[in-house]
């Protein structure tokens, strides 16, 4: 039984000069941070929380970009016994009003007592506060005392019990109320123990990550696991990576990185957008696992990645898969690192019509399914039919899980919690099957779109279109369209308007594109504005997303003829 603060203390006393994090910023030299420096930086925040009267067990929301302040304010909260929760920072494509509304909603649900942000962003944060809400302090990054060594004996964080909540993770979503998952120290350590075992993690490992810390993959695999295990972490930001994907390869080469995690689209992105000149002298042979996670995993994406980087020492068996979610802290499964993930060819029609994964009959269309591996040693997986009964091996059903690190409920969201459980099993909302003990994930129960690792609910996007003048409620449809080249889904929106005038339709299309992006931070690939009676409805008057998708694809094909 241990807590984060106790673990930090022991890492610090073991070797305080050991490097915990190598922080990278585009255009700046890399910044190595030792455990001693990490704790000193964190302690400056611990004292700021104390000065602001923040108590142990209270939630603090961190609204910061990639950088030292984010790291220090996080660990400072831990040392203070407070519960950190990282909120994505405002990006230039999101409208500030929408951001403020999301923040206000987050505050009303999670009831934080402090928010940490930059002085430049203070007014934005204050704009989301309301008379009588839970927030007592807005702590600014420029108002800290000098860094100093923590006195472990007086830290409130040392008094926490392993069953106490240590942090809140937000299950990713588009707009509106995000569901927070409260995790105890013990739950996180249970996950880390099981996941580290699946990886055979040891002292010679080096983790390289650019993933955001407000997402489970970044927070757990790309932040907590290395720091709490005494394993060096090379950390850059998604903002920098998306503009210079080659830096991931250069970092792995320079620091002899052994482990990384990437969403599926990133395999395609790296394979397509890196120039040879940026790979000169790059050696990727140290990479023992690049784990594909948080989007549907595609064999073709692994192939493209391998073809691009094999001449730089990338090993085929380094490309691995995991099925993970914030509700289980992180990993549910991990493929076996000693061999490439299993790939099964299955009959497409049987998969669609009979919901079963069986080998294709001769000459019949087949599809490739890649395994996400076996459940972690602490996690059990079942596949259930619509009545909650177990289905046979290779039959497709909803994935349900149970573990010693699963959520106990969504934070202050009893409504959402109730819907998510069945007799003590967490219902993931994902479809999949089990074959020879390995989990194959095949889709989503709901019409959710996963674009670039981010979950997007079509209803949210459709609601936003109704705010555009000329579009009436119930007369738009949003869906995802798998983009082979990108390895992820493209977002399509079709909106019906009264006007048949092409110029007017185009004007509305432009407005929709802008309005939806500004309010969801989701870029739209296709926006199609159509005349009356285009959109297909079900007999009960609901919009049939799949039928409209088919119609859209047919028209697209016609146009491109």
């Amino acid at each position: 039984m241990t807590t984060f603060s106790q673990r930090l203390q022991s890492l610090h006393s073991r070797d305080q000069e050991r490097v915990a994090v190598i922080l990278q910023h585009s255009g700046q030299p890399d910044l190595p941070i030792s455990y001693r420096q990490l704790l000193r930086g964190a302690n400056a925040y611990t004292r700021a929380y104390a000065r602001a009267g923040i108590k142990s067990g209270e939630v603090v929301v961190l609204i910061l970009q990639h950088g030292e302040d984010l790291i220090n304010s996080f660990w400072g909260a831990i040392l203070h016994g407070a519960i950190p929760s990282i909120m994505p920072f405002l990006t230039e494509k999101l409208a500030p009003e929408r951001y403020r509304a999301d923040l206000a909603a987050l505050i009303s649900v999670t009831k934080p007592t402090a928010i940490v942000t930059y002085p430049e962003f203070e007014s934005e944060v204050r704009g989301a506060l309301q008379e009588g809400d839970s927030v007592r302090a807005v702590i600014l990054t420029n108002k800290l005392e000098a860094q100093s060594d923590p006195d472990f004996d007086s830290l409130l964080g040392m008094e926490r019990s392993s069953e106490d909540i240590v942090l809140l993770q937000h299950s990713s979503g588009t707009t509106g109320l995000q569901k927070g998952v409260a995790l105890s120290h013990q739950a996180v350590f249970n996950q880390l123990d099981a996941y580290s075992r699946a990886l055979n993690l040891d002292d010679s490992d080096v983790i390289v990550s650019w993933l955001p810390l407000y997402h489970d993959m970044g927070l757990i695999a790309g932040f907590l696991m290395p720091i709490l295990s005494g394993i060096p972490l090379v950390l850059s930001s998604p903002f920098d990576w998306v503009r210079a994907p080659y830096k991931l390869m250069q970092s792995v080469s320079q620091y002899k990185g052994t482990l990384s995690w990437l969403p599926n689209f990133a395999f395609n992105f790296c394979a397509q957008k890196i120039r040879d000149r940026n790979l000169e002298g790059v050696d990727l042979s140290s990479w023992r696992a690049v784990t594909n996670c948080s989007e549907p995993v595609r064999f073709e994406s692994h192939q493209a990645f391998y073809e691009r980087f094999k001449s730089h020492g990338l090993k085929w068996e380094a490309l691995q898969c995991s099925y993970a979610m914030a509700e289980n802290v992180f990993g549910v499964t991990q493929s076996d690192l000693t061999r490439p993930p299993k790939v099964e060819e299955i009959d497409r029609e049987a998969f669609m019509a009979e919901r079963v994964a069986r080998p294709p009959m001769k000459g019949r269309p087949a599809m490739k399914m890649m395994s996400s591996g076996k459940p972690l040693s602490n996690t059990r997986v079942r596949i259930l039919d619509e009545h909650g009964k177990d289905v046979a091996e290779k039959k497709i059903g909803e994935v349900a899980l149970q573990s010693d690190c699963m959520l106990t409920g969504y934070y202050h969201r009893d409504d959402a919690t109730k819907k998510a459980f069945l007799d003590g099993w967490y219902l993931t909302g994902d479809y999949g099957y089990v074959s020879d003990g390995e989990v194959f994930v095949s889709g989503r129960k709901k019409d959710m779109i996963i674009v670039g690792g981010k979950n997007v609910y079509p209803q949210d996007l459709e609601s936003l279109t109704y705010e555009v003048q000329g579009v009436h409620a119930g007369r738009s449809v949003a869906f995802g369209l798998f983009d082979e080249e990108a390895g992820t889904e493209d977002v399509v929106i079709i909106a019906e308007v009264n006007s048949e005038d092409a110029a007017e339709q185009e004007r509305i299309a432009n407005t929709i594109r802008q309005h939806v992006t500004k309010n969801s931070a989701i870029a739209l690939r296709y926006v199609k504005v159509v005349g009356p009676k285009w959109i297909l409805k079900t007999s009960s008057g609901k919009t049939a997303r799949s039928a409209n998708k088919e119609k859209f694809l047919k028209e697209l094909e016609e146009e491109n003829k």
Partner: protein
Amino acid sequence: MSDNQTYNEFISKIETYIASRILKQSKRKIRADEPLISSGLIDSFSLVDLALFIEDTFGVRIDDTELNAQTFDTLDQLANLIQSRQSK
């Protein structure tokens, strides 16, 4: 070719690229002063593509630290940037 002609050519080539390859609406017109990045028209995932296209088409490099709305946000700004770098 006069400066004006080159400028117009830059604009039209980039416009065609953005409309057909990034927005996938080949008939879409883009005004020279229309915000591209700050408006969300071009998302961050497409910025590298745009930089690679410009490098291949005009022989001008845009550094990854310059892929933001502060450096260029419109076709006009982009065409001027290319022109100033080509003449160096």
